[in-house]
């Protein structure tokens, strides 16, 4: 699992140090309130809020690489957390009337924190627009991280099925058919046995990138299973789909993949099949696609023999 903890030790340490400093200053300056002055509801509310803020900080630090946006978000949430934390301590401690800094420590960090958080969120929004641009051809208008494939930077079969259902709805409204290309690698099992499964994984990652580059802006590529990929081509007829499929086959044939262990070139090839779809369920479409692929594989074998 990729984790960014180790880049953020300093940030986390400074937040914890600040919290401790606040606690120490209260302990030095004030005295503990008597038990009957504790207000349970306030303690729970403020303590819980402080804990939530700290959990947000942890989630952000765990999931984001270091950078400007991360620093802003952490600093903002850090201030919010500190303010809530001081509020929480206030419930237990009685400070002399003459002191005013406790009030300052409670109230000032909150607006500063919210300001920093807002700036951070604005830049995060800009960053997300950039990432969306990079994610094109891998997702369409809808994101569900549970449907990400675990090996390649593509979405999985579940996401594809969902998209096919959406296209079917669109077909019922506009009568525009869509096409699918299924791509299966030839002799991938042999490659796994000869070069090892780790090399096979890398080949799948490389091929998925290559296929993406050979598709149009509005097409969607998903990994169906194993060494099998499916491209969803909205608003596309059979002829165009076949042309695209042939282009994919050519692209993989001319792809000079270098193995990681010895850097030798591995020759790859794929078999592609297409089918056009309209008002059918995702299962029916995929069923037809699988039989088209089986037919195409047999044709390839016959040509080779």
């Amino acid at each position, binding site marked *: *699992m*990729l984790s960014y903890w180790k880049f953020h030790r300093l940030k986390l340490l400074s937040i914890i140090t600040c919290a401790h400093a606040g606690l120490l200053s209260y302990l030095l300056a004030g005295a503990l309130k008597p038990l009957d002055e504790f207000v349970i509801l306030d303690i729970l509310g403020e303590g819980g809020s402080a804990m939530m803020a700290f959990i947000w900080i942890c989630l952000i630090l765990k999931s984001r690489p270091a950078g400007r946006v991360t620093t802003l978000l952490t600093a903002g949430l850090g201030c919010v957390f500190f303010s809530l934390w001081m509020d929480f301590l206030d419930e237990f401690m009685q400070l002399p009337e003459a002191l005013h800094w406790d009030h300052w420590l409670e109230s000032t960090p909150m607006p500063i924190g919210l300001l920093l958080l807002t700036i951070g969120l604005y830049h995060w929004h800009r960053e997300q627009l950039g990432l969306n641009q990079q994610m094109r051809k891998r997702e369409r208008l809808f994101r569900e991280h549970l449907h990400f494939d*675990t*090996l390649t930077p593509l979405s999985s*079969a*579940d996401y594809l099925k969902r998209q096919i259902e959406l296209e079917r709805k669109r077909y019922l409204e506009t009568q525009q058919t869509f096409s699918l290309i299924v791509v*299966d690698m030839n002799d991938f*099992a*042999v490659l*796994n*046995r000869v070069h090892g*499964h*780790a090399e096979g*994984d890398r080949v799948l990652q490389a091929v998925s990138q290559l296929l993406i580059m050979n598709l149009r802006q509005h097409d969607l590529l998903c990994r*169906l*299973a*194993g*060494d*099998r990929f499916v491209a969803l081509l909205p608003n596309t007829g059979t002829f165009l789909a076949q042309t695209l499929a042939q282009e994919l086959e050519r692209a993989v044939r001319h792809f000079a993949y270098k193995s990681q262990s010895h850097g030798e070139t591995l020759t790859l090839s794929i078999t592609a099949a297409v089918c056009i779809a309209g008002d059918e369920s995702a*299962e029916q479409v*995929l069923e037809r696609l*699988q*039989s088209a692929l*089986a037919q195409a594989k047999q044709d390839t074998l016959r040509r080779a023999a």
Partner: protein
Amino acid sequence: MIWYERDQRCIPAHHQPACLIDLALSRGIEQHRLMRGTGLFYDDVLAGQTRISPEHFLRLLQNAEHLLSAPDTSFLLGQRLLPGHYGAASLALSHAANLQEALDLLVRHRASLSPLFAPRLVHDEQYLCLYWIDSCGAGTTRRFMAETCQTTVAAMCRWLSGEHLPWHFLFSHAQPSYLEQYQAHLGNQLHFNAQIDAMIIAREYLIKPWPRAQSTAGRIAQRDALTEQASQAMEQGFLEHIYALLQADARQPASLESLAVQLGISPSTLKRKLHKHGTHFQAVYDQVRKHVALYLYWSRGLTNEEVADYLGFHDTTNFRRAFKRWTGCVPSILKPLA
């Protein structure tokens, strides 16, 4: 014949478990989470001396399934398991002259080649059927095991024969939502809710020579494998052992007591052992008679009356009721595959 039980340390950790560990580690799973509850440490696996019990291996499989949480885990594991690196049996398998020899070796050395799910062979004039018996009480891992084992044999045959063999795959479970994984890894000849976990192929493929075989090396490896097997003195898992005993006498009525006598243990010990493996006498006995009945229908084409008579039922009504209990359906709807 000596059997192994669920809690006996009989599976070398550097054999099948190591394949699973490699797969999980290559997908970024942390060692300690993968091996939680198995009493196993990665250093022990590397030392190459540790053995784990079927129970712990099953736990390891469950952990991997849960942590990887991808529908292709069983299929990816299946592609790595055979012919494997499990001593002389693996070597003999990789030099098998043809499908017949490979499957015979697989069945003979199933304790080391497939310790959790036992492969068994049955054939008629046209077809050969390799079916699987849960030998250690897989429980909830059953479907995962069925997927893994059938992929294992299909992938091995493809590698050693150099071609795609036209297997039919039968699964006792219902069609899962990730059908595309089955299609990509096994092919399009899939049958779910089939009452049995089995793979079937036409007999003409049995004796087609395989290109990788080296006859002399293969014969020596086969001899060594037999020696190794004799030294380990373990041929099958407890549940499969019972299955085999009951199947051999399928025409005679059997009971917990008669089976205990055959095994040389007391009925209460037998009951306890069955319970440990997550099952009971009636379940195993029903499974045996169901399999026999299916074989008689599918392969020998017998009628209801003949099957009932073969299994010692006095009238067909009784038999039909029993069959409904074993399978959830009446005999007439089970059509032969071919």
